């Protein structure tokens, strides 16, 4: 596939609607900013006086390493066919059959441009997704200069625009700052502005803050939160404290097969706390990827992904069981290509 960035699995229908709540910076679910390796100065050993601090990455990525260890809840049957038409263009068809939500077909296309900034990345990246009901998710990511990257994302529900946001990110030598403008409406005078700043204090420690300002005709408000991330030898610990609550994650890589994650979340709004423990077992010899999680809400879940070689097929089986309410949900995905 050359340097084509494969879009991650299509977003679940109808979700990701922006409310006035903080932390909505992330793009519509299913889309992720392609990760950029920190701009390292080639040929400069780290032991020099005033050795440069590494770029800390983006604000959203800090909790992501731990979140990726957890399985996602699957429901119903999903068939995904990915087809690469060229080095730059990829097309995907998704058929979803489900009992709880609506069944549908989704067509997605990804275009990766020719401006190459790194070994695995090229810009601009345009990702689009359309549902059988006409709901569109579209995203354009472009690297404007060597340090500035911008993204525009649009989400519609049938013909109505639900989410439109523009985001600009600046990567300095040892800091990253980003500004996101969400759902700006000049006529109504409403919108959401989110500003992020993340600074490397030491090669292992990064501190940052987030400011969310939302405005609607008649009300306006702001929420701030602070974040700290510590990276150790084989672990990453992140803590976010803010007006909306506390969120702490710990990611640990036990060996090259087993990864663990612990997540603690407390919300001021709902006055609830939850602790989850997840693990990911990677057995490339058996073409197996297994993710399991146990929750403090008595929810047990697991996802098993198996590559059915020699065909380019991948089968994912998921099961989630809520012991307290005695509710069970299972589903499977088949991915071709």
């Amino acid at each position, binding site marked *: 596939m050359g340097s084509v960035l494969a879009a991650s699995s299509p977003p679940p229908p109808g979700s990701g609607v922006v409310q006035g709540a903080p932390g909505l910076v992330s793009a519509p679910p299913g889309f992720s900013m392609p990760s950029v390796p920190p701009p390292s100065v080639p040929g400069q050993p780290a032991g020099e006086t005033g050795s440069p601090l590494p770029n800390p990455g983006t604000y959203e990525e800090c909790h992501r390493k731990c979140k990726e260890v957890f399985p996602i809840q699957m429901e119903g049957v999903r068939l995904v066919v990915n087809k690469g038409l060229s080095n730059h263009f990829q097309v995907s068809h998704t058929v979803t059959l489900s009992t709880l939500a609506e069944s549908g077909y989704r067509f997605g296309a990804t275009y990766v441009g020719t401006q190459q900034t790194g070994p695995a990345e090229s810009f601009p990246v345009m990702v689009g997704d359309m549902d059988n009901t006409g709901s569109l998710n579209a995203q354009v990511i472009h690297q404007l200069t060597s340090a500035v990257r911008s993204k525009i994302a649009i989400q519609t529900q049938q013909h109505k625009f639900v989410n439109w946001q523009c985001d600009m990110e600046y990567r300095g030598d040892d800091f990253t700052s980003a500004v996101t403008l969400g759902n700006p409406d000049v006529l109504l005078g409403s919108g959401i502005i989110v500003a992020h700043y993340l600074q490397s204090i030491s090669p292992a420690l990064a501190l940052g803050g987030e400011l969310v300002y939302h405005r609607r005709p008649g009300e306006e408000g702001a929420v701030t939160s602070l974040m700290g991330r510590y990276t150790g030898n084989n672990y990453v610990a992140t803590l976010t404290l803010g007006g909306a609550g506390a969120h702490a994650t710990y990611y640990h890589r036990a060996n090259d097969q087993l990864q663990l994650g612990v997540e603690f979340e407390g919300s001021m709004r709902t006055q609830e706390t939850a602790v989850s423990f997840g693990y990911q*077992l990677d*057995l490339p*010899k*058996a073409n*197996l990827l*297994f993710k*399991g999680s*146990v929750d403090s809400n008595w929810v*047990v*879940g*697991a996802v*098993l992904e*198996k590559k059915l070689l020699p065909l380019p097929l991948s089968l994912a*089986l998921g*099961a989630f*069981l809520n*012991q307290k309410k005695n509710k069970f949900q299972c589903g499977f995905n088949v991915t071709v290509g």
Partner: protein
Amino acid sequence: MAGIEELSPAAGPVETRPPEGEIDEDEELDETILERLWGLTEMFPDTLRSAAEVTASGSVTVAKKLYSFSRAALWVGTTSFMILVLPVVFETERLQLEQQQLQQQRQILLGPNAGMSGGMPGLMPPAPVKM
């Protein structure tokens, strides 16, 4: 025994009441054996009786709770094990069996070969020298 003697025909008037410690069997024939045994417990002091009653009812409650708890724990444990651990166990066992099979096949294929080439070194065809 003194009372029986008094009721013999040679005793005094019929209105003589029997002493208080005597039990007249005719009046309480409809008492079951269990009630009579229960009545025996009335000889113990009250504190001991109440303590025994509390202990007994407490142990019955504990036994019931333990039973229902072990049922729920067994169900939760089994289903969680089934979801979290069983698929990995199946797959690793399958992988092991496959590897064993491959090894066996390789042994069958290469084993006798290794034996032959080791045991018969002079199996090279003689180079024909034709004059």
